């Protein structure tokens, strides 16, 4: 018998945790992007505010969803950091001449080698991002009317923020970092689950790149679009 605790702390089990939480976060990010695409509709924010009001209408259920998401993020982050620390300990004496790839099918690149760094940056981004829109929506958000009911004017908050080029730069940079994280993460999640056949891996790895670029472009287009629209 393989006890669950031993299985999940094993080199393979801990990557199962990383994969499954990672895939969950990817699904969240896809939904987040699809909803936010309403920002591109030039209707003065009506669609976007209606979308945001839908979440407000959930009432206490929204907090349950947010806590669930937070739990997945914390699991992915802490498990990832702990795995990274173990990997560091596995090579106490570093190479004087750092590892150079021998090519072939190797995915040794800046995306794959810096998952902990891009991941930590994204965690830092998430704290700022949640404060920036989620917390400030409650504290400084102004009211507007959506479908005849009072709702927060999240659109005004978003548009107001992206008049500032510093915010545009920070969000754009963060989405580029996200692209690097997903470039390796997408394929890695599937490989860690053993869901990979030699005949698929090249295509999946290529799809990971397209997916990462599309997702990042979808997101980073928003601050740039709103900045240019306001200018």
């Amino acid at each position: 018998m393989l006890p669950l605790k031993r299985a999940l702390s094993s080199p393979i089990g801990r990557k199962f945790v990383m994969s499954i939480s990672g895939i969950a976060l990817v699904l969240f990010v896809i939904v987040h992007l699809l909803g936010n695409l309403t920002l591109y509709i030039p209707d003065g924010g009506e669609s976007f505010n209606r979308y945001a009001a839908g979440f407000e209408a959930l009432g206490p259920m929204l907090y349950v969803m947010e806590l669930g998401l937070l739990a997945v993020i914390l699991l992915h982050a802490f498990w990832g950091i702990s795995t990274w620390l173990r990997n560091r300990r596995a090579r106490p004496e570093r190479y004087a001449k750092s590892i150079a790839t021998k090519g072939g099918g190797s995915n040794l690149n800046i995306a794959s080698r810096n998952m902990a760094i891009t991941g930590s940056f994204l965690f830092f981004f998430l704290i700022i991002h949640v404060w920036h829109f989620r917390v400030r929506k409650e504290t400084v958000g102004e009211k507007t009317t959506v479908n005849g009911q009072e709702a927060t004017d999240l659109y005004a908050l978003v548009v107001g923020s992206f008049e500032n080029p510093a915010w545009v730069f920070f969000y754009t940079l963060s989405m580029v970092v996200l692209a690097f994280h997903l470039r390796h993460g997408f394929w890695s999640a599937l490989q860690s689950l053993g869901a990979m056949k030699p005949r698929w891996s090249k295509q999946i790895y290529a799809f990971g790149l397209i997916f990462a670029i599309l997702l990042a472009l979808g997101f980073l287009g928003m601050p740039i679009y709103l900045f240019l629209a306001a200018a």
Partner: protein
Amino acid sequence: MAQETMTVHLKVWRQAGPEESGSFQNYTAENVNPHMSFLEMLDVVNEDLIHKGEEPIEFDSDCREGICGTCGFVINGQAHGEERGTTVCQLHMRSFSDGDTIVIEPWRAKAFPVIKDLVVDRRAFDRIIAAGGYVSVGTGPKPDANSIKVGKDVSDQAFDSAACIGCGACVAACPNASASLFTGAKITQLAMLPQGHPERTRRVREMVHQMQEEGFGNCSNIGECEAVCPKEISLSNIAKMKREYLRAMFSDS
């Protein structure tokens, strides 16, 4: 006709013993025949050192035909040097240019402590094998040779995994010093064949546990192991190991 020779500058890791601290020493190898193997070049450097009354550079080697898995060190950040699908004994000096500076380091991993200079202790691999990388056989009369049929495609795949010579390059090249390709190949080889099936659950459980106990890192699917493997063992062996482990997690035995 005079043969063209070359000169290379070596930066070699020298470490007197497991507890000593090591450092890089510079050597110059002159009159190197380009058709020498890398190890033959080191043999010549060592003869020179012995004549001068200095300690020769210690390194492992045995068959020098690229099939035993004894030799191996890191050359300019690449396990077994820049040529793919070969061990360092089959790397020839013609791969280098006259006047090159070559940095030579031992495999670096917590689980592979340095014994001396470029020689590392790879018994961690033996202990992973001892944990389950075998098929138990009963004593008594020998079984009929072809009593269990194995398809050609399956036996070919098992053979590809069995080609692993346990040199340790996969660990050396992995940014996480993970032994997943080695362990994955050993598990896959036996998981493919009917003879390996009765013990497959216990095998993957114990071998993966031993791999962790030895202090190897975790696989992050970078795939540099596959690129440096002298036997070109595929990353799919790691995927197979993950499936075997998943199966063991949900198995009753």
